Structure formats: structure tokens, C-alpha cells
């Protein structure tokens, strides 16, 4: 903060005025960039995926983006602040994904699906997975991506949540084959451009129209809630010299939180870039791989999941062996990105919940959420934020189920003081 109040006079003044957390931020940044170089020796596209995941983690931290609160706050008090950001991101990504999918599958009528797109089965598994996920994320206070970036900000309860998610994913791996035979094997993958003979134009138009309707619905909800945000009175900073202008730029990027709409838009662009490099963004696959590795180490390996590798989405991303895989890069990269964001803003702090109930909520919510993420083949990122832009019906059904789960979760947390 001290940095913004005066014009830097030279390197020594700059260093003296630099908050300690910022210095650590620079070290983390260089460390993470160095790791990108190491990873690129395993496979060249790992470096851009890792850097994009870092950018995503930074964006989530800066805009305080939280998919869990986006759904929860609709029901809790009619606020759609983050939901509007999500819609902006989905709209940006829908157009970018369509261009990318067109280059892979120019003629959608033949029934071939673009390989890496998150077009997932539509059916009972989507609904049950979404309900469990929505309920769990509200109980634990954050979804999978939210818990990951809060881990990096120093929220100890989020470490417990991620532990819960790993346990939940483990339970799902052990029961996947039952679900496969019971329902998933018969569930269709509905891709709007091919299934309804709409082509890309129709698919994009329909998806954008759906987003517009959702946007208007949220505005209407908000107008009924009686919420209003007065502008926070802020002293006008002098912006005459280049130094002052740079300092204002620095503080609006690195110190002050970003508006949710900006965060959503940036995440949409990052999603498109990840897909252009290799695959849409998703974080469940890597955690599932991690969970399976732990179970194998404990001699409790799940039997091989039937059909899962043909489904694409997050599960298809957990490919490869060894530490540095595609899913490792897009998932673990969030952590240094969010840590750098938190450190530059001096927002890193180890936070221990004082109420012991919160640990139970983090663990229990995490387990339920993890099971739902495994069943829904993705979380709020893979099965929702990357799935709707893939012009897949599954993303919409998952979103409805998430809303239902979040509604139930809100009823539950109102009863947990």
C-alpha cells in the first residue's frame, strides 16, 4: 500500500517501500516461471497451459471470483454480482470455443464431436452430480476451483475442503462402474450443432440467447431484493506525472479487487486460450488422478472405470503418467497464480476458523462435492464453465442441478450458526 502513495524515486526507494509480501510474490513468480521451463522439457504445451492456469488463479484471486457464492447468493439474498461475471465469461467463451471447434469439425452434421470439447452425457448422472455438487459447495463455502485458490491465500479450512474433495472423488471412483451400468452408459451426449441440425450459427445463437435470458432473470431477481451499492467514497489520487499514472495502474491491477464482470470476462478469454492450446479448462481430472494414486498406494485401488476415458471432459484430461501432465498444469497452476495475486495485494494470511464446526462443514461439504464432481464428470469449471461454451446441453442441465443443490445448501447453512 505504501508503494502507491508516493512516486518511486529510484530502485533503492522502490525496494525500501516494497511490502515484504510483494518481495515474496516476485520470488514465487520467478519460481513458477522456472517450473514452466522445466515442464516444457517433458512436453512443450505444458508451459502455456501452466501459465494460463496461473493467469486463471491470479484472476480468481483478484476478482474474488467464487462460483459457489454466485449460486448461493441468488437464493440467500437475490444478489447476482458474480453470476453476471460468469455470464459475461460464458458469452466470451461461447464465441471463442465455436471458432475453435469449427476448425476441428467444420461439418457438425456428420455426428463427429470435437475431441477435446466438454460435451458430457445428459441424464440422471448430470442431475444427481449437480445436486450433490451444488449442496456440497455451499456447505463447505467454496467449489473446487474456489477451494484451490483459497488454499493459496492461506485459508486453512480450504485445505480441509480439498481433502474432503479427494475423499469424495475416491468414493465415486469405487462406485463409478455401478453408475456406468445403472445410467451413464445409456446417457446421450447432446451437442447442439449436430443433434438439432442447427450448425454452429444456430448453436451459438441459442446459447447466447439462453445466457441473455438468464442475465435478465438475474437482474429481475436483484431488482426485487432491495440491495443497492453506494459508491465507496475514495480520495482522488493525483495522476499528473507518469509515475503517478503508473502507480494508479499498479494499484487497480494488483491492489484493489477487480469487478466480477472483469474477472468473468478474463476467465472466458483464458478458457478460450487453453482450448486453443490443447483443451478447455477443468480441475477435477487432476484431483481424481491424485485421489486414485493415494488409494492405489493404500492398496485400495478402484477397479478400472468402464467407459470413462471415452467421455472427454475433465476425465479425458487426466491423461498421461508421471507428475507433469496436462491436467497437472491446468489445475496446480492455479495455486502459484493465486498466491502471487494475494501476496502483491498483501492479502496472504493464514486464517484458522475459530468455530470448530467450520472444519466439519469444510470436510463434509468437500466429500459431497467431490462425489458430485466425479459423477458429473467435472465441477463448476469443467462441467459448467467449459461445457456451456462447448455448445453442450450437459452444461445447462448441470447448471440447473447446481442451482437446485445450492438452494438446498442455503436452507441447510441457515440452520448452522
Amino acid at each position, binding site marked *: 500500500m505504501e508503494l502507491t502513495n508516493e512516486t518511486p524515486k529510484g530502485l533503492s526507494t522502490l525496494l525500501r517501500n516494497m511490502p515484504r509480501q510483494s518481495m515474496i510474490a516476485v520470488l514465487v513468480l520467478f519460481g513458477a516461471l522456472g517450473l514452466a521451463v522445466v515442464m516444457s522439457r517433458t512436453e512443450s504445451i505444458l508451459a502455456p497451459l501452466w501459465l494460463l492456469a496461473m493467469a486463471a488463479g491470479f484472476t480468481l484471486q483478484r476478482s474474488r471470483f467464487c462460483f459457489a*457464492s454466485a449460486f448461493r447468493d441468488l437464493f440467500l439474498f437475490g444478489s447476482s454480482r458474480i453470476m453476471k461475471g460468469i455470464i459475461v465469461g460464458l458469452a466470451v467463451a461461447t464465441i471463442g470455443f465455436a471458432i475453435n471447434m469449427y476448425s476441428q469439425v467444420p461439418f457438425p452434421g456428420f455426428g463427429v464431436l470435437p475431441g477435446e470439447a466438454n460435451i458430457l452425457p445428459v441424464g440422471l448422472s448430470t442431475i444427481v452430480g449437480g445436486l450433490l455438487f451444488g449442496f456440497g459447495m455451499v456447505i463447505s463455502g467454496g467449489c473446487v476451483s474456489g477451494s484451490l485458490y483459497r488454499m493459496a491465500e492461506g485459508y486453512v479450512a480450504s485445505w480441509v475442503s480439498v481433502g474432503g474433495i479427494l475423499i469424495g472423488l475416491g468414493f465415486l471412483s469405487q462406485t463409478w462402474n455401478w453408475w456406468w451400468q445403472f445410467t451413464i452408459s445409456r446417457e446421450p451426449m447432446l451437442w447442439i450443432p449436430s443433434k438439432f441440425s442447427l450448425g454452429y450459427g444456430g448453436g451459438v445463437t441459442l446459447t447466447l440467447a439462453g445466457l441473455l435470458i438468464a442475465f435478465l432473470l438475474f437482474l429481475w431477481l436483484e431488482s426485487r431484493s432491495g440491495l443497492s451499492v453506494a459508491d465507496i467514497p475514495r480520495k482522488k489520487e493525483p495522476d499528473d506525472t507518469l509515475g503517478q499514472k503508473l502507480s494508479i495502474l499498479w494499484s487497480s491491477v494488483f491492489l484493489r479487487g477487480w469487478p466480477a464482470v472483469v474477472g468473468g470476462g478474463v476467465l472466458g478469454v483464458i478458457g478460450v486460450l487453453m482450448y486453443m492450446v490443447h483443451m478447455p479448462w477443468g480441475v477435477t481430472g487432476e484431483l481424481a488422478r491424485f485421489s486414485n494414486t493415494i488409494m492405489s498406494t493404500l492398496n485400495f485401488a478402484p477397479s478400472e472405470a468402464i467407459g470413462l476415458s471415452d467421455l472427454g471432459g475433465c476425465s479425458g484430461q487426466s491423461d498421461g503418467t508421471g507428475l507433469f501432465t496436462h491436467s497437472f498444469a491446468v489445475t496446480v497452476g492455479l495455486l502459484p497464480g493465486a498466491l502471487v495475486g494475494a501476496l502483491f495485494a498483501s492479502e496472504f494470511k493464514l*486464517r484458522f*476458523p475459530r*468455530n470448530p464446526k467450520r472444519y466439519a462443514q469444510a470436510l463434509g461439504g468437500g466429500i459431497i462435492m467431490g462425489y458430485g464432481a466425479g459423477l458429473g464428470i467435472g465441477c463448476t469449471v469443467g462441467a459448467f464453465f467449459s461445457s456451456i461454451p462447448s455448445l453442450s446441453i450437459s452444461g445447462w442441465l448441470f447448471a440447473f442441478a447446481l442451482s437446485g443443490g445450492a438452494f438446498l445448501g442455503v436452507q441447510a447453512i441457515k440452520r448452522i450458526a
Partner: protein
Amino acid sequence: MELDVRGEICPYPMLKAVEAMKKLKGEDNVVVITDHAPCLETIPPQASRYGYTYQVEENGGAEWTITLTPNGGM
């Protein structure tokens, strides 16, 4: 009235601030101390609903004070 909600994450700080504003019915300030940045977005919109104005102060070390004052002052 002071409300120290450090360590708590969304939605609890907001729910507790709302509860306090409801209980006090504009008879006292509510001073919320938090270390959860999203509260800076969730608590202020609630203020006007219960006839309060708000002020946000940065305490450094990832802590903030949100002072909710009844309309018309104290």
C-alpha cells in the same frame, strides 16, 4: 457494537452483520472486523436495506473494518 468475524468466510460475516443491524434497529453502529476480502462486496449492499450507511477501512495485514452507521448518524 463490535463484530469480530476474523476467520469466518462467506456467507457468515454477511449473515452476522445483517443479524446485528436487524437487532439494533438503527440504535447503534455495527463495526465489522474481517480478514475475508469478499465481505467488502457482500456486506455494503446490505447496509441500505436496513437503513445504514457504510465505510470501509483497510487495516493492513489482510484485515478490514467495515463500519455500518445508521442513517442520520449516531
